[in-house]
């Protein structure tokens, strides 16, 4: 057997230390930007050194090496700008005394002045403890590009007050973005998002944080059945439910129940409830569509003008309407969205599904083909082409 160099190194445990060490440095008065850079260097060194020489106290090791890097960086700057020396000697006021490390850093990384892509990358590095290379791999961009994006994001934050509680809604959105970015490259971003959301639920009582964690768990549980061995998409109604992760479903349901018990509903809790109902059905025919429709009614009621503010919810509801009140009623619901979503592949795919439900295969084939032309993802495009071909073949028996 080959002895792998990283054997014995628990990368997950190492990365979990990153936000704690970083928050410690920031609390001590270090600049977020410089501290984050120094810690990234310490992390790279840990990945190199620890497999051979595991430290006795990993957290202290990281803090010490990062501090040394900060001192080095400062010295070289001091050499260049001697007159700034006094400024460095003055300790800055601690950023915050109380509160959880993770929350503090998530608020920094999800600062409203940053663009969503920057919020995502900064969160993955500063809170997730990923290296720049890993983040670059996950988003299929060159490492230099990702490094540049990170340093630009941090430049934006320079001079901003980072001691104020931030907007939790933004943090939740960023974590959901990380989740939906999927799992390209070596890093499982969905798993990473779940880990971050779990940390967040330890730091805040807000039920929507738990709703988000539940939603991720309940969707992630179906992941093993979502693609076949050839990488083809398998739709929910055809999935092998025996391959769903029952442990994740159980945890998701538990987390959701504790959130709903607070009686402050929000969109993530409602979406998690819908996911839970799908997970609960032993087969597609047993899906409790009337209950799902009731939750969709709650979801669209969260906004004043759902067609424009939350068209995805209206589209999801149209599917439920189709299953409860009939395909024609579902199609009528999608008509309201034509102006807003008529150019999106998902709108056409849902109509294909509803036409199929109604037994109108020519219309279903045409709608799936329209959806395929608008898809922006190869796996989804291929899936929609297959759906179109399948519907058309069923309409014209073989040999015709």
């Amino acid at each position, binding site marked *: 057997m080959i002895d792998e160099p990283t054997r014995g190194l628990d990368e997950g445990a190492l990365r979990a230390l990153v936000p704690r060490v970083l928050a410690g440095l920031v609390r001590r008065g270090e600049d977020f930007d410089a501290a984050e850079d120094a810690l990234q260097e310490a992390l790279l060194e840990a990945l190199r050194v620890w497999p051979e020489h595991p430290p006795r106290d990993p957290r202290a090791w990281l803090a010490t090496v990062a501090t040394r890097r900060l001192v080095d960086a400062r010295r070289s700057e001091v050499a260049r700008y001697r007159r700034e020396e006094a400024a460095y000697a003055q300790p800055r006021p601690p950023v915050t005394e109380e509160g959880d490390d993770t929350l503090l850093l998530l608020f920094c990384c999800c600062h409203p002045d940053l663009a969503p892509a920057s919020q995502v990358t900064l969160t993955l590095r500063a809170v997730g403890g990923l290296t720049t290379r890993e983040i670059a791999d996950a988003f299929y961009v060159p490492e230099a590009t990702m490094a540049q994006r990170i340093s630009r994001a941090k430049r934006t934050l320079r001079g901003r007050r980072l001691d104020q509680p931030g907007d939790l809604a933004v943090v939740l959105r960023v974590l959901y973005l990380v989740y939906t970015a999927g799992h390209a490259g070596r890093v499982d971003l969905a798993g990473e998002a779940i880990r971050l959301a779990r940390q967040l639920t330890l730091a805040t009582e807000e039920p929507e944080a738990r709703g988000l964690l539940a939603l991720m768990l309940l969707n992630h549980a179906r992941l093993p059945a979502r693609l076949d061995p050839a990488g083809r998409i398998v739709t929910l109604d055809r999935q092998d439910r025996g391959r769903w992760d029952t442990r994740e479903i159980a945890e998701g349901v538990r987390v959701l129940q504790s959130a709903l018990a607070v009686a402050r509903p929000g969109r993530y809790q409602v979406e998690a409830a819908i996911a839970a109902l799908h997970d609960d059905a032993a087969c597609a025919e047993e899906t409790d569509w009337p209950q799902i429709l009731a939750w969709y009614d709650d979801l669209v009621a969260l906004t004043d003008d759902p067609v424009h503010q939350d068209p995805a919810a209206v589209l999801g509801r149209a599917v439920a309407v189709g299953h409860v009140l009939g395909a024609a009623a579902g199609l009528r619901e999608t008509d309201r969205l034509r102006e807003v979503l008529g150019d999106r592949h998902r709108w056409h795919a849902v109509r294909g599904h509803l036409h199929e439900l109604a037994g109108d295969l020519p219309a279903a*084939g045409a709608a799936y083909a329209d959806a395929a032309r608008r898809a922006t993802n190869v796996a989804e*495009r291929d899936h929609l082409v297959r759906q179109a071909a399948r519907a*058309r073949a069923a309409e014209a028996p073989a040999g015709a």
Partner: protein
Amino acid sequence: MPKYLLLKHYRGGPQPYRPFPPMDQWAPEDVEAHMAFLRHVGELLKKNGEYVDGQALTPTRTWVRYGGPDAAPVTTDGPLPETSDLVAGWYMIDVDSYERAVELAAYVSSEPGPGGEPLYEWIDVREVMSGAPSQD
């Protein structure tokens, strides 16, 4: 080693050797065979050490030009948006020779179509200019 782009087109190029309908009108098993072949091409190129990149493009195109100072960019979907040449995607390969690039392009073009017959699709082979100055 020279790099080449093997470009696939939604439309444009020489007269099709054998016209074929859009894939969503093929028999489902022919669609499967076609997609499996393209997956196999990607894997083969990787196994050979000839693969650099492979991407697919959506069929939506926007032509854009500078609008002038203080003006918004000018956009159009082009002259003859229904018939003009439109790239669908590519393989970028790093191979020993032009001959090898042609051989691989012909192999891609043998992809199965309706009834399992080869598509004979025209593949556009373009050499990528090297960034490094010549050593000789």
